[in-house]
């Protein structure tokens, strides 16, 4: 078959423009054929073509396995293609990705740096938590590779590994830190990159690195690195203010040198931005980075003072507004301003006009930036002006997106910090009303929410708000466009509610009532109609009261009749909520009608339905209620029924709409006195409670001086501000009025000031600075009471709920200065034994997959197992047989025996929890060259009950030579199963120092902790002791090889057991059985048992004649039971244990011991 290469494919696609899809499906069929061939070159070619097709949007996930095949090709040519395809098409959901682990590990340790490089690059694109965990250690090793090319890549990819497997951060961090001082600038820059990214998310953990980075900043000449470092300091300075001061000088220098690279200002219209070369751009970028960090202030000052000639550039300022300005720089300038704004609002505010001009820009990016900036720029003084300007833009704006953006920004600007900048709420209401005239906006609900909020919280404005809202309800133009959902008709929701709730302020309640009962209302969305229905009754109640008080019985009856006539249209509503409310109310009104017919006064009772004040509740109030002590919300109150009827299937729509509404709570029966008393009590409590959130910032304080629901605040009616603007008002009028008012205020103030001054100081006179009008001078038009939203008592002022629990960086918030605990060690390449595969992280995805593809999983498993076996064989071959083993063992045995007999008499029982001596050590010494005699050593292996799977190895070192031994270092070659616990940051190959020196003839003991994965088999660890032997003739460096033998018995801990418990254990049937028999024993049974107790850590449970039962427990909790019987000349041991391998190994060891008797 002829093979089409990539170029042919591309050409073919270009030639088949009309029937591209058909051509490609044909190609894919061919590719499928090619993938079936054995020739790897053909396969790679096919995969290459697939990668191209993937880019065009075709699914190639079916070829994932073929991609892996190509990845594992031995030739770099193909491997490169395979990894490229994998990096383009693999993602976390690709299930075959777990098959790549071994291949990637192999490539990472490949002798060719390009193989390694390609694997690292590929891995950076598709690393999964599993891959990260399995390969973290390999990559960490590569960080110290000899080639900078590899080091650099390994350092960068570590960041990805940290994100996927946060546990790796602590063990890897010391090495990462080391790389900051790597001789290769590329590696150094990579390390800076990674640490900078880490520090940006959790700066507090990296403060200790500040001096190091400071050094780097002053010494580095690489702009890319400098930018990152400046960014890092930007994150660190808020935490350590002293740092900012220290940074001024180096930063200033940097920026000076940066500026010096900038080209002179060219004449408009000539030259281009980019070809000026990267120096220019990166220098500029650096300047900007500095501007964008919080350090900017200092830098800016020094800049502008150091470079007066640059102020000439202010002349070019108009270019901001012109069409020929540089859009990039305009954008970045605005961005920079927004950063400066936070620290120095005044300096930015002086450029208000410039920024407002940017709102006219064609470019939406710039407009949005400018809008963003305006948000931070408003003050009491300029709010009205800015909003006015925005309103004109709203009218002009093309496209709903931008208009919606404007609308939300206007509302944001006005409502920020609890309406801090609004001096005239009538103006604000009229702005909101004007906004309702926008067509096709999506933000009706936002306007509605604002209206409600203002009307509820600013009591003084209610009268005005009600008049505006009734006008809104009356005007039909909103209803006309009510067909679209989520549209502006949401406003009617607020309007209806406000008119109903505050109906006492209505001028013509009857008129409004009729407006709310119009037939067209039924075209509104259900939830709005529901509010209508509810508020119609409130309105009705208040009208009824008015009429009855005025003695117009007929008028009252007429209103009731109107209700009875119109309500049925709501009863027929399709919306259940509307229907329910309407029919309920209709019955009520009919009842009232009956009473009215009998001339019974009803108004009091009807109004009692709606008595009381509704207080605003903070949106997060519910969440912030602290859980009382001793209340467990997760505990079952009643045990759940096993067969639960699903409640969820109930149609949710019924109460769905209700949730969006303000929670209503109406204590209809509570009498006023009780309310007042409670309120007083609560106020008292709030005042005494330091944790109660007092919402108002300082400028608001004065509003709070006259709080209280009972007192409607004193409205200082300024005669120039009419409380009612007829019809729908124009907010502009307010602007004008406000200006006049302020002017007058100012004049008055000046007058007063002059008077005062004249009174106070006649002789001493100096030119007073011009009385600048500051924010504080502007008195609000109305004295308003902004009611604090209610929060639960004892609510904690925490922002916890703002954090995203899914934020991947949260997991990386790790204290890096703590010493590394043993459990935090990176997993090292090892055979997966049963235990590790049971670890929970591993298990969960497996289970999920199992249900889908059980067959595939088995296959994978088998392959893994095959891999394991292969490796084991290799390892066996590697370990050479020790020489002279026997001889040394005997010698060893003697010393050990002596030592032990001192420490632990045979058969003694030790309290559980204490480390128990369990040694069965073996030591091997190789002849040491040179003058110093080999220092003989003893070691004990002790299990500890506190830490399962950990044993302490105590090594006694005795110096028998005449030299002083120092600088001793112990290095042990970890096996798959046993690992030595090393201090933080040291690698597997590093030696662990022995914490003492040995003068001649002295012995001392050093202890090391080993972590054992599986204890069912005995094992040996090879190790080397290196030391410096120093005597009169000089010092020599010596080595001594040895071998640690971890026997199965050493994992057992002598544990006493009572016969009844022992019997129960045997009956349980969970134990597997095995037995041995040894002939030719002449020792007494008593001694025999003592020997077993001593060497194998058993305790005797019961002894009857020449028969005894014994018991012991392993550090991992296996039970071991023995039945020892002595015959004439032989001993038989029957064992039962929860692990059969452990048992058979133990019995083997026991056989060896007994054979010596």
């Amino acid at each position, binding site marked *: 078959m002829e093979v089409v290469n*990539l170029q042919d494919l591309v050409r073919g696609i270009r030639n088949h423009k009309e029937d591209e899809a058909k051509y490609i499906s044909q190609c894919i069929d061919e590719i499928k054929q090619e993938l079936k061939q054995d020739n790897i*070159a053909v396969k790679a*070619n096919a995969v*290459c073509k697939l990668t191209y097709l993937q*880019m*065009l949007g075709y699914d190639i996930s079916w070829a994932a396995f073929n991609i892996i095949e190509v990845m594992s090709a031995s030739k770099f*040519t193909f491997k490169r*293609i395979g990894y490229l395809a994998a990096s383009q098409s693999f*993602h976390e959901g690709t299930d075959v990705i777990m098959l790549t682990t071994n291949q990637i590990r192999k490539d990472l340790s490949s002798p060719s740096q390009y193989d390694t*490089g*390609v694997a690292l*690059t590929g891995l*950076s*694109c598709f690393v*999964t938590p599993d891959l990260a965990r399995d390969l973290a250690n390999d990559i960490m090793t590569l960080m110290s590779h000899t080639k900078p090319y590899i080091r650099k*890549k390994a350092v*960068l*990819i570590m960041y*990805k590994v940290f994100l996927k497997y946060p546990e790796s951060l602590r063990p890897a961090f010391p090495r990462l830190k080391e790389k900051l001082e790597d001789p290769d600038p590329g590696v150094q820059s*990579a390390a800076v990159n990674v640490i900078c*990214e880490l520090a*940006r998310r959790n700066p507090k953990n990296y403060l200790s690195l500040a001096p190091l980075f400071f050094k780097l900043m002053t010494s580095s000449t*690489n702009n*890319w690195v400098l*930018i990152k470092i400046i*960014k890092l300091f930007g994150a660190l300075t808020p935490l350590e203010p002293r740092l*900012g*001061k220290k940074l001024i000088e180096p930063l200033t220098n940097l920026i000076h040198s940066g500026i010096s690279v900038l080209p002179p*200002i060219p004449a408009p219209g000539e030259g*281009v*931005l*980019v*070809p000026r070369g990267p120096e220019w751009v*990166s220098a*500029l*970028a650096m*300047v*900007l*980075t500095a*501007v964008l960090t919080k350090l900017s202030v200092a830098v*800016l*000052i020094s800049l502008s003072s150091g470079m007066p000639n*640059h*102020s000439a*550039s202010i002349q070019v300022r108009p*270019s901001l507004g012109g069409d020929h*300005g*540089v*859009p*990039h*720089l*305009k954008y*970045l*300038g605005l*961005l920079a*301003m927004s950063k400066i704004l936070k620290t120095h609002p005044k300096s*930015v505010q002086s*450029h208000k006009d410039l920024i407002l001009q940017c709102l006219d820009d064609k470019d939406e990016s710039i407009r949005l930036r400018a809008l963003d900036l305006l948000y931070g720029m408003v003050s009491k003084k300029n709010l009205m002006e800015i909003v006015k300007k925005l309103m004109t833009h709203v009218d002009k704006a093309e496209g709903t*997106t931008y208009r919606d953006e404007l609308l939300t920004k206007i509302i944001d600007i006005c409502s920020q910090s609890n309406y801090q900048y609004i001096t005239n709420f009538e103006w604000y209401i009229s702005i909101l009303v004007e906004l309702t005239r926008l067509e096709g906006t999506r933000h009706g609900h936002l306007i509605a929410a604002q209206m409600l909020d203002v009307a509820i919280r600013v009591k003084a404005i209610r009268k005005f708000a009600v008049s505006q809202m009734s006008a809104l309800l009356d005007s039909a133009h909103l209803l006309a466009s009510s067909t679209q959902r989520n549209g502006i008709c949401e406003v009617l929701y607020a309007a209806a509610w406000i008119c109903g709730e505050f109906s006492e302020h209505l001028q013509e309640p009857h008129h409004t009532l009729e407006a709310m009962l119009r037939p067209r209302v039924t075209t509104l969305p259900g939830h709005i109609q529901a509010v209508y229905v509810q508020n119609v009754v409130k309105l009705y109640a208040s009208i009824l009261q008015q009429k009855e008080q005025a003695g117009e019985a007929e008028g009252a009856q007429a209103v009731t009749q109107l209700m009875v006539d119109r309500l049925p249209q709501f009863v027929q509503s399709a919306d259940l909520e509307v229907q329910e409310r309407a029919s309920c109310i209709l019955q009520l009104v009919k009842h009232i009608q009956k009473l009215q017919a009998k001339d019974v006064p009803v108004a009091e009772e009807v109004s009692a339905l709606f008595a009381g004040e509704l207080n605003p509740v903070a949106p997060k109030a519910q969440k912030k209620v602290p859980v009382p002590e001793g209340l467990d919300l997760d505990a079952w109150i009643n045990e759940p029924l096993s067969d639960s009827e699903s409640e969820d299937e109930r149609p949710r729509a019924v109460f769905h709409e209700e949730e969006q509404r303000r929670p209503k709570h109406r204590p209809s029966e509570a009498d006023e006195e009780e309310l007042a008393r409670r309120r007083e009590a609560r106020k008292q409590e709030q005042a005494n409670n330091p944790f109660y959130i007092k919402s108002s910032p300082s400028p608001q304080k004065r509003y709070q001086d006259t709080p209280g629901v009972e007192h409607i605040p004193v409205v200082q009616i300024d005669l120039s501000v009419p409380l009612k603007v007829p019809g729908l008002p124009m907010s502009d009028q307010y602007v004008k009025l406000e200006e006049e008012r302020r002017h007058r205020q100012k004049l008055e103030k000046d007058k007063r000031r002059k008077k005062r001054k004249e009174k106070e100081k006649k002789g001493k006179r100096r030119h007073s600075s011009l009385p600048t009008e500051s924010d504080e001078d502007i008195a609000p038009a109305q004295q308003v009471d902004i009611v604090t939203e209610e929060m639960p008592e004892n609510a904690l002022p925490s922002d916890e709920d703002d954090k995203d629990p899914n934020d*991947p960086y949260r997991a990386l918030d790790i204290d890096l200065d703590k010493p590394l605990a043993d459990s935090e060690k990176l997993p090292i390449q090892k055979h997966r034994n049963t235990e590790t595969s049971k670890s929970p992280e591993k298990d969960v995805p497996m289970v999920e997959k199992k249900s889908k593809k059980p067959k595939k999983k088995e296959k994978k498993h088998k392959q893994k197992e095959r891999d394991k076996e292969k490796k084991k064989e290799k390892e066996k071959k590697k370990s050479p047989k020790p020489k002279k083993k026997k001889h040394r063992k005997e010698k060893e045995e003697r010393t050990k025996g002596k030592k032990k007999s001192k420490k632990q008499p045979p058969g003694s029982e030790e309290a559980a929890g204490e480390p128990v001596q369990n040694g069965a050590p073996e030591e091997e010494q190789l002849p040491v060259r040179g003058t110093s005699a080999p220092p003989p050593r003893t070691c004990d292996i002790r299990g500890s009950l506190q830490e399962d799977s950990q044993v302490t190895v105590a090594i006694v070192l005795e110096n028998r030579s005449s030299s002083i031994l120092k600088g001793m270092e112990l290095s042990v070659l970890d096996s798959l199963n046993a690992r030595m616990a090393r201090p933080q940051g040291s690698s597997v190959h590093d030696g662990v120092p022995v914490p003492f020196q040995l003068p001649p003839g002295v012995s001392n003991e050093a202890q090391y902790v080993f972590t054992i994965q599986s204890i069912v088999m005995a094992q040996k660890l090879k190790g080397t002791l290196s030391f410096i032997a120093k005597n009169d003739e000089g010092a020599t460096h010596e080595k001594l090889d040895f071998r640690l033998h971890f026997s199965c018995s050493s994992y057992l801990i002598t544990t006493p057991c009572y016969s009844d418990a022992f019997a129960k254990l045997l009956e349980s049937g969970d134990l597997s059985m095995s037995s041995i028999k040894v002939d030719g024993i002449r020792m007494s049974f008593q001694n025999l048992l003592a020997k077993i107790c001593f060497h194998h850590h058993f305790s005797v449970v019961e002894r009857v004649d020449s028969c005894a039962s014994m018991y012991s427990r392993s550090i991992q909790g296996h039970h071991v039971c023995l039945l020892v019987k002595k015959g004439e000349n032989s001993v038989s041991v029957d064992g039962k244990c929860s692990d059969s391998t452990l048992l058979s190994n133990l019995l083997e060891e026991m056989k060896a011991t007994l054979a010596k008797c």
Partner: protein
Amino acid sequence: MAWISHEWFSIIPLDIVLIILSEGHSTTASLPQHGDRGFPFAAAAAAAAAAAGQALPRPRPAAAMQFMLLFSRQGKLRLQKWYVPLSDKEKKKITRELVQTVLARKPKMCSFLEWRDLKIVYKRYASLYFCCAIEDQDNELITLEIIHRYVELLDKYFGSVCELDIIFNFEKAYFILDEFLLGGEVQETSKKNVLKAIEQADLLQESFFSS
């Protein structure tokens, strides 16, 4: 700290910002301009429909650069590199939306736009748009410089690169990118080193069907 008094600052308000605002001039893309093999320059499409950013599952941030896209003026994707793991479906959706948005922008507009919660930095070279997505706190200008540097690398490697080079040797374009950026971070700031690594790797590479 006495040196940051308000007075000081208000005297010297925004000189530096204004320098930045006023310096430089035209944004016309300038690099590879070879008419023989490439595509002719053309005025940007004037399609005005601004794509409205719908609420979508936001891509999980994990790298300085989230992804890089190369696409033609016709909206054909020429290269895509994702530094955040996303499903194919999401990738396609993002690509489609972004290509539309960027192509709708006029040539005189700035190279930056805010899109979802990312910042998009793009630049047009001849008929190709280079488009990168970065996180909010990242530096736009440096990203522009990364794009430019990548173009320079392509230019050096292919010798006056044009769109066709990237189409027919797309895997090489990826290899170069992979030597330059890793996991969304700049890996090698020296152009010489990048090209050296690529050349040496190419030496190892044999012709596909030689053996």
